[in-house]
């Protein structure tokens, strides 16, 4: 089962994992990304490209399914204005065995970071600023190329 949701509201990790579960699932790996409290950061505002976002995430999930035997994937990404401590993204992967669940979860995060059309704008005491893409995220995504 594949679930992809873009939403403003928060999500409940436990409820999402319960909804994802099939009876023959032995392993569920999840990743939750949050707004870190750091310095004078007031908020993060997430913009996206609505016509493209779910399609691109769908392609990333298909890529993961071609690489590992997965029983279910749930991806939830929030948009709008988020405060320090707020959850931003959930990736949950169910598989028979833990190796596939871990690898696919990490792959999905690396690809979300470098391919899904979201942009973060930081709001600090001094004003707003668009977050720069990080080279380390490109490197993380490149690891999967030849695998």
């Amino acid at each position, binding site marked *: 089962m594949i679930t992809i949701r873009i939403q403003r509201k928060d999500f409940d990790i436990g409820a999402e994992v319960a909804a994802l579960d099939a009876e023959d699932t032995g392993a569920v790996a999840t990743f939750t990304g949050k707004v870190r409290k750091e310095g004078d950061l007031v908020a993060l505002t997430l913009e996206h490209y609505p016509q493209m976002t779910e399609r691109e995430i769908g392609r990333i999930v298909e890529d993961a399914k071609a690489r590992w035997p997965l029983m279910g994937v749930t991806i939830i990404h929030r948009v709008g204005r988020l405060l320090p401590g707020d959850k931003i993204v959930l990736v949950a992967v169910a598989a028979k065995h833990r190796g596939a669940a871990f690898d696919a979860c990490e792959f999905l995060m690396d690809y979300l970071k*470098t*391919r899904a059309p979201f942009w973060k704008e930081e709001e600090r005491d001094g004003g707003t600023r668009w977050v720069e*893409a990080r080279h380390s995220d490109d490197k993380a995504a490149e690891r999967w190329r030849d695998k």
Partner: protein
Amino acid sequence: MTLLYFAWVRQKTGRGEEQLFLPADVKTVSDLIAFLAKRGGGFADAFADPRRIRVAINQEHTGFDTPLRDGDEVAFFPPVTGG
């Protein structure tokens, strides 16, 4: 064609979306970027360094060499920073 702009590309150009008749000499994404930069003002600023820009055609990431067709939805944006 439909042009879409996101994040600081949207802010610099001052618009999120526009309709454009594909000019005859604009064959590829690169040509379109040069055409838009020539508008001057915020567009010149937004497209001053194409290496900072990414493009999607019809909701798929693509490169600057891709040929354009009228009716395409072309989106310009900075490297993505979600997740």
